[in-house]
């Protein structure tokens, strides 16, 4: 009985320390105590983020071999490589919470872990590469800048590194669009078409409206999430509308207009039916993305097995020396 009381007391103290740290705005580090709910929430969020970086390589990778100039190919390839690198940092950050990359990949394949819905949309033309960099990375940055101040140390540090590269991606995507808008009629039409297709899904990247968002409560209390979905979405809209105007692209929202009182743009209704349809597996590419990831993972099994067998052989040889 006494022992139980003692451990309860220890737990209480640890929880108090954790909460004090959160209140002061100190970073939570892997070795420190954290409540189970906090750990679980982070694991879900970081692994989802890591998977998103990796699955996001597919739609863009679809255009590497067709990039229209050597410079364009170089920029795209380097960008996709950055995304893979982001996946690596984030897998490492998640590993500090006591899960292996292999387990995370299993969870992705079983459907337990998710990735960003945006990558279930297809990259159909070269202009989509511009739109993805500009809008999708642009939306991701708004979210990630805010996450630089997230309470979990390894996650926030990963975000700082990632944000630096993301802003390049956004600029390069915008440059593709700007060039096309200065180009031939065909190029302009291609760019506007990509804008039309990617605008709304980009807005959906911030998730449901604050009134509908189920995870917000704890995440805000624990300072994992620092700004609400709607706040972040508004930030993105405000900065992007002007960028579109500068290069002559039209935002496909007839209700979009500047609200002088709020000093923000008002926007039309978001099609949440589409959002939930895609999240629930019926986007154009959900099955394709996952099937591809699984196929590649399985096809590479013999290589990973060989590397492991070789490592063990060498280890044994060292022991026998």
């Amino acid at each position: 009985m006494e022992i139980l009381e003692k451990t309860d007391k220890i737990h209480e103290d640890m929880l108090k320390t954790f909460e004090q740290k959160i209140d002061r705005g100190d970073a939570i580090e892997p070795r420190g105590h954290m409540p189970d709910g906090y750990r679980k929430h982070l694991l879900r969020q970081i692994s989802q983020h890591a998977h998103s970086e990796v699955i996001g390589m597919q739609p863009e990778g679809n255009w590497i071999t067709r990039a229209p100039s050597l410079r364009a190919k170089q920029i795209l390839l380097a960008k996709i490589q950055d995304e893979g690198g982001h996946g690596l940092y984030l897998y490492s950050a998640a590993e500090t919470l006591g899960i292996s990359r292999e387990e995370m990949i299993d969870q992705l394949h079983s459907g337990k872990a998710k990735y960003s819905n945006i990558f279930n949309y297809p990259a159909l033309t070269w202009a989509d590469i511009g739109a993805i960099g500009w809008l999708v990375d642009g939306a991701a940055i708004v979210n990630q800048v805010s996450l630089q101040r997230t309470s979990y140390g390894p996650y926030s540090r990963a975000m700082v590194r990632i944000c630096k590269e993301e802003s390049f991606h956004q600029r390069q995507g915008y440059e593709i669009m700007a060039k096309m808008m200065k180009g031939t009629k065909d190029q302009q039409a291609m760019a506007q078409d990509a804008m039309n297709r990617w605008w709304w899904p980009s807005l959906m990247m911030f998730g449901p409206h604050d009134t509908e968002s189920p995870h917000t409560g704890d995440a805000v209390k624990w300072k994992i999430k620092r700004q609400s979905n709607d706040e972040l979405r508004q930030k993105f809209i405000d900065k992007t509308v002007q960028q579109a105007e500068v290069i002559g692209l039209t935002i496909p929202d007839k209700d979009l207009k500047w609200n002088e009182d709020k000093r923000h743009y008002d926007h039309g209704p978001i099609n949440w039916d589409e959002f939930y349809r895609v999240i629930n597996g019926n986007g154009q590419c959900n099955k394709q993305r996952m099937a591809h990831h699984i196929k590649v993972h399985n096809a590479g099994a013999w290589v990973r097995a060989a590397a492991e067998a070789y490592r063990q052989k060498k280890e044994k040889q060292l022991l026998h020396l």
Partner: protein
Amino acid sequence: MTEQDALYKYCLRLGDDALIHSYRLSEWCSNAPILEEDLALTNFALDMIGRAQLLLTYAGQLEGKGRTDDDLAYRRSEREYFNHLLLELPNGDFAHTIARLLFSSVWEYYFFNELQHSRDTTLAAIAAKTVKEVKYHMAHATDWAIRLGDGTEESNHRMQKAIDDLWMYTGELFETDEQTAILRDKNIAADMAMIKAKWRQEIERIIGEATLTMPKDEYMQTGSSTGIHTEYLGHILSEMQYLQRAYPEATW
């Protein structure tokens, strides 16, 4: 053939090698057995695109018709490409990709080492830069060839099959022709006989360490120095050049 023509073709060929091999490596994006490998192979592809840009830009200058690196990459047809056949073959499995990278990077290492001393200073500078990059490609390919060769039974078989399958495309790497003879005389081109000896010795060493067997020298494929390619090149070009060909007026 003038020295200028010979040098143009020489640079074009090296540029095509880099361009086409980078194309194949970039196809590993989102397709590699582990994420780290995805990044490594596409990183080599990036090095090669950079090399292609330098060589094709220089080739364009030598030609003197105002063609840029992009013009040369995106507006030439199958019979005007001169990359070695080895580099245009489909990736195959990971072992085939590693075998190709091994054969080509060891070749490039010795080749560009020699070319650093070329009397042509532009070529010598490009070669000096390339040697530094190729060292990493070679170390990576060597490392994997050994791990796969000496890994599991399956990986050993796959690696052996890969080097056997690709062997007949290695002879071409050491061919000489009219243009290389002209450039050799002027101390511009590298000495192929010497490179061949070094290449063979190093490949033998690696294959031995990988517990694999050296393939037999049988018939060697040839043709690329006169623009005779495998059927695969046409598919690469139709994909790579699609936008430039479909919208000839556009810049991107």
